[in-house]
């Protein structure tokens, strides 16, 4: 008994030049915001960008972008929603954002299904927004898309670093590229930069608490004008573009 979905994953992603995984292990550090804003900024720069929300039990990117009334279409597979110039895919298009309790095996099946049937076409960047924890989805991304590059997000809290460190261990053991650690909701005097460098990972800089963020969620124009967005542009973009 062979599951044919697995073999097709590589083929489906053939037109995608670069896959950036926004992850942390820790929850609530700003992964979804980073993934969404990064996708928007790359799009504005003229790149072809896809954004895939892999936090199946608590999807956020549709709320951050403010997607409404759109649905993926079908053409020999699923064609993502086109919104603000980028291609967006999320389980919410199928759950209508209703409560969805999923066990690990379900998460694995959904990821495989989405990777096997979504037609991304030609993309410069596919951004994956990851769930918290170090579980099925993270392990499956490593397993199925080993060319992924991981962008890690942390806060200055020792609680966040403790988890990021565990994720770094896993990624290193699998020779997965780590772009670096982005400090979010940071202060100027944190010890994170040193901790990150001590484990041999690049420290990308710090984004301060931005009180414009909450009011900008769901409004792409406002998001572009936040300090958060200019920080992503300054701290993350060069690191993503340079290696290409």
């Amino acid at each position, binding site marked *: *008994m062979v599951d044919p979905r697995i073999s*097709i994953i590589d083929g489906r992603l053939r037109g995608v030049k670069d896959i950036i995984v926004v992850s942390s292990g820790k929850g609530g550090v700003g992964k979804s915001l980073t993934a969404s804003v990064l996708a928007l900024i790359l799009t504005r720069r003229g790149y072809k960008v896809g954004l895939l929300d892999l936090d199946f039990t608590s999807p956020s990117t549709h709320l951050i972008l403010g997607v409404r009334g759109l649905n993926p279409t079908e053409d020999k597979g699923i064609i993502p929603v086109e919104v603000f110039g980028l291609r967006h895919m999320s389980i919410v298009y199928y759950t*209508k954002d209703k409560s969805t*309790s999923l066990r690990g095996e379900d998460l694995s*099946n*959904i990821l495989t*299904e989405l990777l096997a*049937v979504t037609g991304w076409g030609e993309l410069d960047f596919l951004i994956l927004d990851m769930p918290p924890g170090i579980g099925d989805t993270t392990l499956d991304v490593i397993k199925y898309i080993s060319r992924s590059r991981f962008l890690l997000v942390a806060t200055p809290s020792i609680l966040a670093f403790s988890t990021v460190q565990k994720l770094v261990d896993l990624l290193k053991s699998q020779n997965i590229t780590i772009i670096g650690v982005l400090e979010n909701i940071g202060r100027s005097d944190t010890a994170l930069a040193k901790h990150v460098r001590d484990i041999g990972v690049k420290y990308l800089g710090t984004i301060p608490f931005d009180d414009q963020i909450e009011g900008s969620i769901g409004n792409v124009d406002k998001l572009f004008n936040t300090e958060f967005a200019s920080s992503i542009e300054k701290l993350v973009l060069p690191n993503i573009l340079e290696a290409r």
Partner: protein
Amino acid sequence: MHEWALAEAVITTVEEIVEREKYEEVFEVSLTIGELQQIDTGIMKFALKHLKEGKLKKAKFSIKMHKASFKCNVCGNLWVFNKNKFNEEVSEAIHFIPEVSHTYIKCPKCKSPDFNIVEGRGLYIQKIRGRK
């Protein structure tokens, strides 16, 4: 319909197996498809026919449907899928991602959304018959 995407996956996988196991020619490929996937077998067969080539040129594809059934993780209740209960939008959603049944289906006995899909999801290649 995403039958084409799945047909492509089947062909790619069979070609990999043919390569690995050094088949000269394939006569028959047996597939099972879970009911939850709600695949139109007519379209599926058409797509497979259209996509097969080389050593698969003459292969026949047989498709067997598996009824969907669920088992509740909380109360142990077993029940079968009743497709007529859902409107077209929900049917389409389950068709693409069978796991979203956890959004729309609850255990009829205890109302829990914590159940296993015992059978009826996925598409599997069960057997390949050919000449090596």
